[in-house]
């Protein structure tokens, strides 16, 4: 095992897959000469050259659209959107095209595209640059939506995404890039569509993913001091959603707190809560609680922004509230 950052994990996954398969290439804004806006692809341009590390115009529709075309024609593009907020200008390509081309033409086309996009708030970028709209994309059958919370999972899942014959939206979180974690020295893959228990406990089932996994770890450490052991289930993939470990845990604890960074209404955890009530109603000992972003466009002002975003203390209080 070695300890690396999330940034290094994602970078290693891309590098290894490009070394492995000549058909894998990167295209996006500032991925090449600049080295990536978040420095994920630093050094790629010099090593792989401009053919495989392609700087594009600032034009998200054609970044995803041309990647869709190249994917249909047999390449394995990794299209980078500088932030997930810009995915809205490429929305037609993602939800109308990537997600549907395989089905709508009777299975003739395969679209092995990976769209990397960075989301999340907390960096004082104001309303349009701070969103966590994961649930929007997870709504569409045909697309796979992956959002890891640890370096280990980021590396293994991104490698799987690049090898997948289905279109994958890979959502990163800008405030996670410095998070460190252990990864194996040898090559490994993590399967898409498989949730994972990240911490064992018996008091409450805490379901989360991405950045909120890290906040949940911190909350769990605090709660453990009071003798409350929470079990953390990390979804890792939002579509297809693997409820197996969530249900297994919930049937033991009979209590759940669901934590996400995006808005509460129509969120990822609204779906998880509904499934728990539908599939495990007889096991419910307390109302399921959600911790999520408050329903405002995020402001620039630091204090107000933090007030709107879910905090460690919010998670602690929610857990105490269901016991």
């Amino acid at each position: 095992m070695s300890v690396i950052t999330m940034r290094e994990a994602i970078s290693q996954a891309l590098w290894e897959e490009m070394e492995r398969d000549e058909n894998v290439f990167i295209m996006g804004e500032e991925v090449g000469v600049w080295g990536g806006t978040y420095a994920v692809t630093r050094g790629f341009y010099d090593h792989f050259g401009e053919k495989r590390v392609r700087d594009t115009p600032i034009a998200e529709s054609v970044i995803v659209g041309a990647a869709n075309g190249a994917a249909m024609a047999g390449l394995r593009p990794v299209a980078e959107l500088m932030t997930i907020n810009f995915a809205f200008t490429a929305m037609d390509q993602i939800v109308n095209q990537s997600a549907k081309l395989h089905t709508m033409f009777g299975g003739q086309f395969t679209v092995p595209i990976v769209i990397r996009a960075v989301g999340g708030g907390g960096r004082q970028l104001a309303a349009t640059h701070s969103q966590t709209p994961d649930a929007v994309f997870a709504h569409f059958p045909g697309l796979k939506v992956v959002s890891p919370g640890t370096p280990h999972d980021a590396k293994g899942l991104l490698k799987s995404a690049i090898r997948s014959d289905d279109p994958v939206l890979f959502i990163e979180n800008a405030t996670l890039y410095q998070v460190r974690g252990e990864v194996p020295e040898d090559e490994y893959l993590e399967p898409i569509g498989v949730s994972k228990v990240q911490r064992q406990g018996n008091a409450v089932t805490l379901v989360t993913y991405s950045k909120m996994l890290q906040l949940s770890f911190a909350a769990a450490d605090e709660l453990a001091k009071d003798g409350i052991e929470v079990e953390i289930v990390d979804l890792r993939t939002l579509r297809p959603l693997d409820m197996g470990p969530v249900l297994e845990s919930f049937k033991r604890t009979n209590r759940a707190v669901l934590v996400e960074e995006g808005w509460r209404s129509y969120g990822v955890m609204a779906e998880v809560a509904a499934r728990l009530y539908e599939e495990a109603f007889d096991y419910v000992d307390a109302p399921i609680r959600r911790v999520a972003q408050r329903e405002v466009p995020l402001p620039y002002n630091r204090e107000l922004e933090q007030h709107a975003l879910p905090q460690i203390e919010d998670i602690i209080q929610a857990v105490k509230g269901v016991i």
Partner: protein
Amino acid sequence: MNKSQKIALFHEMVLIRRVEEQAMQLYQEGKIGGFLHLYIGQEAVGSGVLAARKPQDRVLTAYRDHGIALASGIEAKTVMAELLGKKTGTSKGFGGSMHMADVGLNYWGGHAIVGSHLPFAAGMALADQYRGEKNVTLCFFGDGATNIGYFHEALNLAGVWNLPVVWVCENNQYGMGTAVARASAVTEIHKKAEAYNTAHSRVDGMDVTKVYEAAQQAIEHAREKGPYFLEAVTYRFEGHSMGDPERYRTKDEVGQWEGHDPIGIFRKQLLDEKIADEKTLNAEEKKVEKTVQEAVRFAEESPNPTWEDLVETVYVEENGEVL
């Protein structure tokens, strides 16, 4: 083109016309659902351009796609089966009128979100360039598509990367019911290509011989030098789609264009140049009638796709998603 190729081209144009007329009838009988956009009047564009391509050259078009499908080599019975939503159709009955494709014939659809396939064309051309293959991608679209952002992003990218694409604008004078001059600040549409440093020309889209010659030059240019923009001035004799009240044009105008019927023009050329006599051409028309009748019978007798067929075509890979 030699004599037999010219007669085959005549046969193809008549086939497109008769398939469309048959489709109109089946729509009125309620056997075809959804939207139905007919290619009647525009046959010379699809047939003329595709007569100039090599089999390895890729073809994409918009939603008015039956004619291009037939000109790409898809059999009338497969087109008809898709129109009837049958499993034996081009897209297993999942796509319908607007979404036909046959990857084996390098016909990549049939795309109904206006402009969405222009980025695909850029991406497919990129894939060919990436692999060092000297294929050309032929991308058809209407005059209306030249006003949407996709057009500009895709032409710009093709220009920047010097991609082997022929952009074929079928200017049929109206985007749905809005005349070109009411929707486009530039009415000589091919001149829009200048903004993207792309060579361009305009051709009489009612004369298949002229279209063929212009397409040969355009394809040669794309293969050897880079992107090319060909505007074919044409006219659809029927409404935008079935049920169009046609308040935006006069019967006189339609009548004048019908006087320049592309099939009539080509028929006269073949007779004048003594390539074929009346008897030969009438015999071709008879053959077409038989093909269309057989196509309808095939389509009507074909099975519907099943729910299982659909479910297994949502993703390429196994997943537990579909509920």
